[in-house]
């Protein structure tokens, strides 16, 4: 975390803050910020969790109550069974980590080949992969959907199959860009030394390149999981079977048929896994996401 030595001073100097007037202003601003930010960012989450405990009558009551008068923990149980949350959460988890596995295998090997093995036409392939970054994803939704309905040459229909979510995530120019740039920074001498020791390209990748690439693999992994977890339109189109939907689509399609308090309890449950993971790994996640997106 930032330590405020004079080296990284900011808009307002520490000397200004040390004056009595500066001190008063600083502590006032700090307390206002703490209160306002807590209300704005935790307030809605508090309301979500507590509304999940309210009765149908209370959740629709005007004025709304700050604390549930008569808590109904059973709402959470109802939400869990009625919206089949176990199924939806498992599907999301399965799609997210499947996508992660495919991206790690295919994009890492591709970026490694483009960076270190440099085959003929490698630059053309790289250019074509990076060119996809220029095409907005929403534009491709329709032709991609047609492709998934009937995969060219193979004539497979991937609708309702996890492949329809996993494989398109591999076609991610940003992953190729991040990974290749990182591999480029690994000195070629190291590769040559490995080759002299008799290591083939696969052995070099596994024993030398991958252990050095942990930071970038972390960034790619976080993006891979978060992207699938937050995606909406694509999984809605390619996983129409309710038993195969991820959490976002499943809860939304059932949201009309359940009472408001049960729905909110379901929302709270759906938010729990990512919030927990975030609170546990917040340092890695926040630094990874900023590093990755800054350099994009």
């Amino acid at each position, binding site marked *: 975390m930032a330590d405020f030595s004079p080296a990284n001073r900011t808009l307002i*100097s520490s000397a200004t803050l040390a004056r009595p007037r500066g001190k008063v202003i600083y502590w006032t601003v700090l307390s206002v910020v703490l209160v306002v930010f807590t209300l704005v960012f935790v307030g809605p989450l508090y309301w979500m969790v507590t509304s999940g405990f309210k009765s149908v009558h209370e959740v629709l009551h005007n004025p709304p109550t700050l604390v549930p008068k008569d808590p109904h923990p059973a709402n959470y149980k109802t939400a869990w069974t009625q919206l089949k949350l176990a199924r939806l959460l498992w599907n999301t988890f399965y799609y997210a980590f499947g996508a992660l596995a495919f991206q790690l295998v295919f994009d890492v090997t*591709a970026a490694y080949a483009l960076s270190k093995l440099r*085959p003929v036409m490698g630059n053309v392939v790289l250019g074509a992969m990076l060119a996809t970054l220029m095409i907005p994803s929403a534009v491709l939704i329709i032709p991609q959907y047609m492709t998934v309905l009937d995969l060219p040459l193979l004539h497979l229909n991937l609708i309702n199959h996890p492949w329809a979510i996993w494989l398109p995530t591999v076609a991610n120019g940003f992953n190729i860009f991040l990974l290749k740039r990182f591999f480029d920074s690994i000195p070629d001498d190291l590769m040559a030394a490995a080759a002299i020791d008799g290591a083939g*390209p696969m052995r070099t990748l596994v024993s030398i390149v991958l252990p050095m690439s942990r930071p970038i693999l972390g960034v790619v992994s976080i993006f891979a999981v978060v992207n699938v977890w937050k995606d909406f339109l694509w999984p809605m189109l390619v996983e129409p079977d309710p038993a195969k939907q991820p959490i976002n689509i499943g809860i939304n399609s059932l949201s009309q048929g359940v009472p408001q308090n049960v729905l909110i309890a379901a929302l709270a449950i759906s*938010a729990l896994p990512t919030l927990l993971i975030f609170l546990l790994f917040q340092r890695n996640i926040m630094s990874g996401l900023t590093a990755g997106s800054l350099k994009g």
Partner: protein
Amino acid sequence: MAATTVPDKTTRRHAGRAAGPRAQGGRGGTSRRLSQNIQAYGFLIGAILCFGFFSWYPMVREFIMSFQSTKRGVTTWVGFKNIKTVYHDPYFWTAWKNTGMFTLYALLLGFAVPFLVAILLNELRHAQAYLRILVYLPVMLPPVAGALLFKYFYNPEYGLFNRILKIFHLPTSQWLDSSHTALISVVVAATWMSMGSATLIYLAALQNIPGELYEAADLDGAGLWSKIWHVTIPQTKLVLSLMLLLQIVATMQEFTNVFLMAGGNGPENSTMTVVYMVYQYGYHYNNFGGAAALGLFLLLVLAGFSGLYARINRNSD
């Protein structure tokens, strides 16, 4: 490796008789290079297939579909008919106006607010880690949780927001239920859900500003605003302009939040965005040619923004 030894031996035998060691080295090198290339493409094949099927081929198909029409399984070339159809759709300009307004509101809130929040957080000497986590919390929510929660808050009868307005004796609003406020309501919720990532990116950029610049500004007697204007903004210009472009491109493709919170088109089509219209053409009207043609319009507009960005950046360098 085993495959390479066979041709190697034969070349050596031929070469040895014909032209001596020089030719031998040349032929052996070629076959080794060939096998290296084959190996390299073996590493690439998975990604190439995925890009081919799910990115390159759909890109080509997007253009082809825009000029084709499929009826009862028969596909025919129809020239500019799809493009004319979507252009003359009564909601074509509505969708563009809404998308433009959404982008504008999202920039006013989602571009300015995170930057100001980042400047504020950067000045605080305490609780920085806590405040960062707070701002980032909503980013970690699944979109369905954030969107449907805000839909509940926005409810005009029992929602939290009207209650808060009442406590302060302010006029209440119909929020998502009125065509005047639906779009901005979605933008506010979307900003709450996503501003954490922009804030953290700006914070990282602010922390890279050399402190001497501020000290120099102090010696020149610069005030707070003039320091922000002459030091902070110029020093973060690259990140700011890149984020501006990324945000324009992302918000012009808005679908999820209007779909979840306003059912897509919203009251009197006041939240119907271009991407929602693409969705409607494809999955309600079953007119995939029209959907593709509309996508082509979107592609042109977004390419225009990217081109403009590249140009401005080149000029300023």
